[in-house]
C-alpha cells in the first residue's frame, strides 16, 4: 500500500481525501480508474436518457399549460393548486393508498406463508407451476376472464348462489380489483419468497431443534428475521405495482362506480390523453413520484434494522 494514494485511502476509509491546494480530481477522489468510468458510462447514459431527462421534462411540464398542440406556456404552480383543490385527485389518492395497502401487505404475507408451506411439502414444482399460471395471461385476457366471473349472472354469483354486484357496487368494486390483482401477482411473489426460504441456512434450524425450539418458534426467531430483506422486497414490489396500476382498473371498471376504483395512474392518463391537459397530468405524476419515494423511504426505515438471531 502506498501512503497517501487517494485510491487506496478511498477504499480503506470510504471517504474522499483531497490534498489541500490540489484541484478536485474526480477519478482520484472516487477511487475509480478511467476504465471504471468507461464501464459504467453506458449505464449512466441510459439512466440519464430514459430516466433523468424524462423526469426533468415532466417536472418542467407540470409548471406549464399545454394541450399537446403548440408550445407549453409557463404557468408556475397553478396546476398544483388546481389538482390539490380537485376532489377527484384526493379520491384517487385514497384509492391508490388503499390499493397499496390491500395489495402489498396481504400479497407479501400470503406469499410468505405459501413459500413456507411449499418448501416443506412435496411436488413443489407442480405447485410452483400452478401458482405461476396467472402470469402467463396477458393483462387484457385476465381482465376479460374476471369480467365474466364478476358479472351479475357470472361464474362467481352462479357457482356460489350469491348476488353480489362485484364491479357495479362502490363497496365491492375495489375489493374485486384487489382480488384480481392478488390472483395475478401471488405466484410471482411466492416464487421470490420461496427462493428466499430455500436459501436459509439449514444449520440454524438444526441448532434450534437441538435447543428444543418448536416449529413456530423457529419461524418467529429464525425464518422471519432472515426473511426481512425478501419481505421488504415483496412489499416494495407490491406497493410499486399498486401505485402504477392502470390496465386492470381501466378495463374492468373504468375507474367507477363513481371514482371508487380510479387510481392516480388512471387520473394521469385521463387528464393527459382524454382531456389533453398535459400540465395538470404532469403535476399529478410528480406528486405520485414524491409519494412513492416517501413510501419507499418509510419501508426501508422500518426494515433496515440489522438482522438479529
Amino acid at each position, binding site marked *: 500500500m502506498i501512503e497517501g494514494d487517494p485510491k487506496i485511502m478511498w477504499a480503506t476509509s470510504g471517504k474522499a481525501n483531497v490534498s489541500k491546494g490540489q484541484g478536485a480530481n474526480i477519478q482520484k477522489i472516487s477511487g475509480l480508474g478511467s476504465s471504471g468510468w468507461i464501464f459504467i458510462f453506458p449505464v449512466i447514459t441510459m439512466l440519464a436518457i430514459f430516466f433523468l431527462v424524462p423526469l426533468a421534462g415532466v417536472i418542467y411540464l407540470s409548471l406549464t399549460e399545454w394541450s399537446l*398542440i403548440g408550445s407549453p406556456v409557463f404557468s408556475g404552480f397553478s396546476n398544483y393548486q388546481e389538482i390539490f383543490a380537485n376532489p377527484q385527485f384526493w379520491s384517487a389518492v385514497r384509492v391508490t393508498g388503499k390499493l397499496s395497502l390491500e395489495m402489498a401487505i396481504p400479497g407479501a404475507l400470503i406469499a410468505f406463508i405459501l413459500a413456507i408451506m411449499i418448501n416443506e411439502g412435496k411436488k413443489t414444482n407442480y405447485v410452483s407451476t400452478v401458482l405461476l399460471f396467472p402470469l402467463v395471461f396477458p393483462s387484457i385476457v385476465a381482465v376479460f376472464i374476471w*369480467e365474466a366471473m364478476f358479472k351479475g349472472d357470472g361464474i362467481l354469483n352462479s357457482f356460489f348462489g350469491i348476488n353480489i354486484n362485484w364491479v357495479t357496487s*362502490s363497496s365491492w368494486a375495489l375489493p374485486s380489483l384487489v382480488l384480481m390483482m392478488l390472483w395475478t401477482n401471488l405466484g410471482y411473489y411466492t416464487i421470490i419468497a420461496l427462493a428466499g426460504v430455500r436459501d436459509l441456512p439449514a444449520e440454524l434450524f438444526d441448532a434450534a431443534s437441538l435447543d428444543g425450539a418448536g416449529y413456530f418458534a423457529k419461524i418467529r426467531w429464525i425464518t422471519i428475521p432472515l426473511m426481512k430483506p425478501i419481505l421488504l422486497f415483496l412489499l416494495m414490489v407490491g406497493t410499486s405495482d399498486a401505485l402504477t396500476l392502470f390496465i386492470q382498473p381501466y378495463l374492468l371498471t373504468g375507474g367507477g362506480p363513481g371514482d371508487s376504483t380510479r387510481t392516480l395512474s388512471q387520473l394521469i392518463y385521463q387528464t393527459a390523453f382524454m382531456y389533453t391537459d398535459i400540465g395538470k397530468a404532469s403535476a399529478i405524476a410528480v406528486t405520485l413520484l414524491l409519494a412513492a419515494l416517501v413510501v419507499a423511504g418509510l419501508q426501508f426505515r422500518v426494515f433496515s434494522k440489522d438482522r438479529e438471531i
Partner: protein
Amino acid sequence: MKKSIYQTWGATAAAFAMVSASIIAGSPASAAAKTTITYWTHVNGPTNVFEKDLIAQYQRANPTVKVNYLPVEWGVLPTKLKTSIAGGGGPDLFNFFGGYASELISKKMVSPVDFSAFGLKNGKKDLLKNYLPAVVNGFSAGTTVYGIPHEVSNHVYWINTDQFAAAGLSAADYPKTYDDVIRVGKILQAKPSGGLKEALVMPQYNAIRETLTLQMMARQAGGSLFSADGKKPQLDSASVVRALQMWGDLANTHGLNQPALGPTASNYPEDLFGAGTAAMNNTGGPWVVKVMSDTYPTIKYKVLQQPTFKGGIQAGGTLYGFGLFVPSTSKQKAAAWKFAAFLQSKGQDYFDKTGVWLGDNQTFKSAATKAYPSWSAFATNFAAGEFLPPIVKYSELIDVIDRAIQRVVLEKKSASESLAVAQSEALLLMR
C-alpha cells in the same frame, strides 16, 4: 486471385443494378406518384363494410389515390385520435362525434372545410341549404365551418314485441310514460311469464350515450343539462334532478334495470336488447335496424317514441351527429376533402345500405327513405328532438355527468346530492 474476386463482385453488382432499374422502370407504380389518404372512423359493422366498397369505387375512379381505412373501437377512438394528431401524425380524414367539435376547434386540432371540394361556392350559406342548421352550427366556430355532417341520429325507444306478447302485453300496453314503463317492466320480470332478468337496458360505461339519455330525460321534464349557448351548466336544476332520480328509481326502486348485467366496456345496450336479455332499450336510431338484422335477425321489435313524464312534454330523443374532419396536421388536406366530398355524395346509398342518415335534407325527404322500416317513428323523433348545445370542455363535462349518473344508479345516492356535486365540478370547468 484477388483480381478475379473483385471482377466477380463487380459484375454481380452491375447485373443487379441493371435488373433493378428495369423492374423499377417497368413498374406501373412508378408512372405517377400515389397520394395516400388515411381515413379513421368508428366501428359499425354494416357501415364499415359499405365504406370499404365506396373506397374501392373511389380508388378505381382515382387511380393515383390510395385510401387506408381504419375503423377504431369507439371506446379508444377519442384518445387515440387526439394523441395522434397532437403527435403530428394521425389520419388525413376522420369521422368523429360532433359533440367533440367545439373542443377540437378550440384546441386547433382541425382545419376549416375546403368548400371548393364540395362545389359550394358560397361556403356555409350553401351548406345550410343541404343540412339542418343546428347540425351545421354544431361543427362551426362563428362563420367558419370545420366539419361536414356525416351522420345524424337520435335515440328512440325499442321494445321486443315477442317478449311483450309472452308476458301477455298487447299493443295497448306499449309504454308512453315512465309510469307505463314501470308497470309493464314489472310484468315482464314477473316469474309466471318466464321472467326477464332485466326489463330495460340503459346506457352504462359510455359517457356520451349516458349524457344524451340524461339530456333527453331532462328535456322531457322541461329543462336541459346546459344553457342554450352551452356556456353554463344547469345540472342541479329541478328538471335534471327529476330526470336522474327517475333513472335511479328504474334501477334501484323498481329493479327494472340491472347494471350488473351490463352493458360493459365491451358491449352495448343494443347487444343486450338483441340477445333478449332486456325487453326495452332507449338507445339507437335508424342505424340500429341494420345492426339488428345483421347480428340478431330473429328479434321482433317495435320502435316507439321516448316515454315521457306523466303530464310532461314529448321532447323526442337527443339528436346527435358525426362529422368528417381533416386534422390541422394532415399533409393531404385537399385530397382528404375531395374524398370527403365523394363520401358525402352517397347519402341515399348510405341510408339504404346501412341505415345511417348523413344529415342531408335530400335523403331525409326521399321516397326511398320513407320506405325504411319504422321510418315514421324515427322521423317524428327527429322533428321533436334537439342537439346538445356546443360545449368546449366536452370530454371533461361528459365524465362529470357520467360520475353523477353512476353515483345514483350504482351507488344509490340521491339525484339531488349527486347533481349538486356535479354542478360544482362543472362550474369549475366552465368558468
